[in-house]
């Protein structure tokens, strides 16, 4: 009886609703979304934290600043007082949320505040670049797969060319070139420090990895009976694409989203780590890891904290991606998972 009810429920719901229902019950989905939610919330609260809690400007160098730690006035950058007195070490974590919770970096800036701002940058760039990539991949994949012929040939060759370059090599090359003087397309100018540059670069380099599977899927769909029927009945191309092709491609696209966003975020961090992504004094998790590299022996937390944030975010996105894939997979649904 219960089986009958369940089957009826399944057949009366749209695939999207079924997937959502499955996702709501999936522990992986709940855990990953919770982690992502916390990270996104904290990152977007960065200005609030800096202004109202830590009372600090995370983009301003404060090399001669002092703070009160347990009643003692302490320099944020502390010259060595032992041995030969060589070197200057930033203050470590105070574990006081109002004052250098995670300590200072080499410029005397609050690492916690920069970590939150960095998260904002990384998430914005990663998500925007990922969505940009998905949008253009979908466009290219559908146009190439549906129109076939010379349009497909040209688009596929362009994708092949981009694919021929290793992702990071291409991203680094584009970054190095574009970061010198920015990018000008007609009347639009993207300055060297603009977030739009890494978004564009990262968005472009991953297009073939999404567009090609979509194109292949569209090519297959193009030959399916229901599409042929639509063509035979004289439906417009736009109608066929939006009513027949797109709904069948969307599950794959939805599965791609968390994966590509995760990859974009990692790429942004890598580029920023190499000083060719987000430009100083702006922060991203990659730039903070770069800052922390010079403090690895004395203040490892400066590099470790953004590293852990990247790990948690990427893991959560990938976990969520797995859950979404399973939720949209008819075979999984049929198993009653």
């Amino acid at each position, binding site marked *: 009886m219960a089986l009958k009810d369940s089957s009826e429920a399944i057949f009366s719901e749209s695939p999207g609703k079924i997937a959502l229902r499955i996702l709501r019950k999936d522990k992986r989905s709940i855990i990953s979304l919770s982690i992502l939610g916390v990270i996104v919330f904290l990152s977007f609260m960065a200005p609030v934290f800096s202004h109202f809690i830590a009372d600090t400007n995370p983009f301003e*160098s404060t090399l001669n600043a002092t703070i009160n730690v347990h009643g003692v006035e302490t320099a944020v950058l502390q010259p060595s007082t032992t041995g030969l007195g060589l070197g200057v070490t930033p203050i470590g974590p105070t574990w006081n949320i109002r004052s250098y919770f995670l300590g200072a970096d080499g*410029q005397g800036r609050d690492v916690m505040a920069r970590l939150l701002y960095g998260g904002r940058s990384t998430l914005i760039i990663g998500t925007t670049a990922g969505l940009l990539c998905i949008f253009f991949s979908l466009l290219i994949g559908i146009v190439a797969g549906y129109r076939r012929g010379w349009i497909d040939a040209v688009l596929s060759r362009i994708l092949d060319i981009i694919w021929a370059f290793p992702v990071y090599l291409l991203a680094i090359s584009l970054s190095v070139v574009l970061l010198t003087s920015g990018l000008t397309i007609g009347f639009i100018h993207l300055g060297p420090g603009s977030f739009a540059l890494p978004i564009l670069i990262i968005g472009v380099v991953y297009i073939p990895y999404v567009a090609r599977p979509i194109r292949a899927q569209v090519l297959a769909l193009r030959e399916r009976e229901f599409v042929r029927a639509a063509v035979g009945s004289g439906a417009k191309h736009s109608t066929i694409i939006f009513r027949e092709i797109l709904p069948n491609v969307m599950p794959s696209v939805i599965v791609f989203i968390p994966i590509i966003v995760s990859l974009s975020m990692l790429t942004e961090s890598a580029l920023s780590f190499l000083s060719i992504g987000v430009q100083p004094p702006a922060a991203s998790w990659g730039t903070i890891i770069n800052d922390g590299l010079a403090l690895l022996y004395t203040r490892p937390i400066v590099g470790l904290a953004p590293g852990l944030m990247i790990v948690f975010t990427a893991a959560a996105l990938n976990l969520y991606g797995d859950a979404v894939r399973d939720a949209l997979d008819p075979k999984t649904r049929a198993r009653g998972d």
Partner: protein
Amino acid sequence: MHRHTKVLSSAMGVAALLVSALVGTSSASAATSAPLAPYDAKHAGGTVTLVAQAAAGTLDPKVNYTAEFWQLYQATYDGLLTFSYGTGATTFQVVPDLAEALPATSNGGKTLTFRLRSGIKFSDGKPVTVADVKASFERIFKVSSPTAGSFYNGIVGADACLAKPATCKLDKGVVVDAAKNTVVINLKAADETILSKLAVPHAVINPASAPSKDAGTTIIPTTGAYMFKSYDPNKALVMVRNPYYKEWSHQAQPQGYPDQILYKFGITPTAQVTAVENNQANWGYDPIPADRLNEIGTKYASQVHVNPLTAMWYLPMNVNIAPFNNLKARQAVNYAIDRAAMVKIFGGTQLAGPVCSFLPPNFPGHVDFCGYTKGATPAKPAKAWTAPDLALAKQLVKESGTAGQAVGIVVSDDDVNKQMGVYLQSVLTSIGYKATVKPISGNIQFTYIQNTSNKVQISVTQWYQDYPAASDFLDVLLGCASFTPKSDSSINMSGYCNKALDAKMTKAKTLGLTDPVAANKMWGAIDQEVMADAPVAVVFTPKQLDFISSGTKNYLFSLQYKMFVSQIQVK
């Protein structure tokens, strides 16, 4: 000279002026001025291992212009003159090397006569002759040595050689007599710094058969205690004893201690420190990473040597484009920067000292003054820098009408330079500019900031003395002749050209031939006039920190070439 293209010399007359100032300022090394101790054969033998992140390019001594390899050339190649081995200011002294004595001068200082020592052989067994000397001077131009046009353009016939290097002949400039074994160098005009210029590696004597183009990784026979055995820029450079070497001057080219000197490349700076700590290397070339300084300064204090350098970190401002074509804007930067903060970024007060005069402390012509510190003006300078004056800086920016303008700060992309750039960005933003940092590869930054086509507004760079004469700073870096628009080789990065000051510099150079003391006084006055114009903001003078392994003995520091590698003892 730039950090990676550093080193050089001393004019004998002015060297004495440095003695009192330069000695005894190191925190962990003995820098008293003394000649080299007699050779102690019982310490001979073993392999000295040096490590660096990268090789320094060509091995050709007439082309290479880096501190990394100039340090090695002193133990391998010889010129007619060289800088003395020893300690402290002794190492600034120019002494005869392949020449029997310092030159006899005549014709108002325009003719220098040397007698070549007999019996010296190259490492391939061939004797050193006066023909090799002449060919070597011609080779300076044939290989387009980086200093051909600046150090040796005063030799008679140099102009033609500079115009057509391939067919360079110095028949009138370098006249040799094989029978008398003499070499006469004729100059177009007397040059107060010529002895120093003849003592640097670009003037060493190579066999006449040496290639007339950059030898690259090809090894040119040496005359010194060591010769190069092999060189792979991606792996290592190996130096072994020169079988034909016999000590002719303990001051100029003393016998070395190790049997072999192995220079390994591809070792990161932090790995270098670890290697030295573990006795896997004797010394590392690259600056110690900031986060290892405290560690070596406490755990390994006895193995650390800090020595003074006559050098500066400074910020050239382009006086020909906005906003720094405005005097008040340039002065604002000078007032705004917290030099103590920048010293912190460099590693603290033990490794650098804030300054705002162009000539470094303890340098010929240096005067203690700072017109850009709190409570001072260029007209009424203080003795030393004490604190920035942000309020005055903001006021100057406002008065200049340049507030709100975009300023790009071009820095090298290594950690310290980048941190300096980030700090500057913060300061310039605080005084009213829209500042951005542009870190670019260290391999190209130094030439990039010289080229006016790149429209660099302000940058972070360094200058290390070539020889201890004020002209090597003021004239070389800010003289009109050093500014060549649209050239990668325009060392006057500010594009500053003040004809009146140029005339004064020429006068000071001439005066230096007869009255070095009066000349240096004049240079001091020129320094103050230049800084009133503020084409640059001088930040601090750095020190050299050497970290050696516990098994490394007989560390000796040359003010010219840094650590003497051939004098290290591992036995």
